[in-house]
């Protein structure tokens, strides 16, 4: 069974602080994704990382994929209240039966609260 462990589970910080969320896997996925989910909504894709050692930046968010493609991190610089939400990492498995995009295995999520 493929598992993804996220840490920390809860994070409460002040506006302007930096933070890092970690995602560790027991196995290798074809790629890894980070999502953000707000209450009453479905997850929204932030980024997909594919290559070991890859670093992607999205404004104040920096995503890293470990060399062995089994761990990833999300770093937010100068957090804002609008960053509040549930952050989820997800490993992507290959598709089956004609599909090229398979199932996602999600971590349990990190609930981030940014206080003004």
């Amino acid at each position: 069974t493929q598992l993804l462990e996220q840490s920390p589970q809860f994070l409460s910080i002040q506006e302007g602080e930096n933070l890092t969320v970690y995602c560790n896997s027991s196995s290798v996925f074809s790629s890894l994704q980070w999502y953000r989910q707000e209450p009453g909504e479905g997850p929204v894709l932030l980024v997909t990382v594919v290559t070991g050692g890859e670093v992607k930046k999205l404004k104040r968010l920096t995503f890293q994929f470990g060399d062995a493609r089994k761990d990833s991190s999300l770093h937010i610089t100068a957090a804002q209240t609008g960053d509040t939400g549930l952050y989820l990492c997800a490993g992507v498995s290959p598709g089956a039966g004609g599909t090229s995009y398979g199932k996602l295995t999600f971590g349990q999520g990190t609930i981030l609260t940014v206080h003004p």
Partner: protein
Amino acid sequence: DAGVTQSPTHLIKTRGQQVTLRCSPKSGHDTVSWYQQALGQGPQFIFQYYEEEERQRGNFPDRFSGHQFPNYSSELNVNALLLGDSALYLCASSPSGGELFFGEGSRLTVL
């Protein structure tokens, strides 16, 4: 362009009953996946439909079944409901080989 739409948004059932949830994919998407998200947890993969067939299945009992129609819309059926089936049920659609787009979910409460 409408995104992924799900219905109903909320529903309450009692143990032993059956429920059907519906999903209309984003325009141009032919693949539909269903996920169960319990409170405080990440989503768990139930199954994926493509060309009206179940292509992949997660670790869920046979009480969970689905269907995909020729217009790519999909239904999730759950029989003999248990208290533990209470969750947010998410539908996600994607074009072949593409990014998943999630709907807002159907919140099921089993009493």
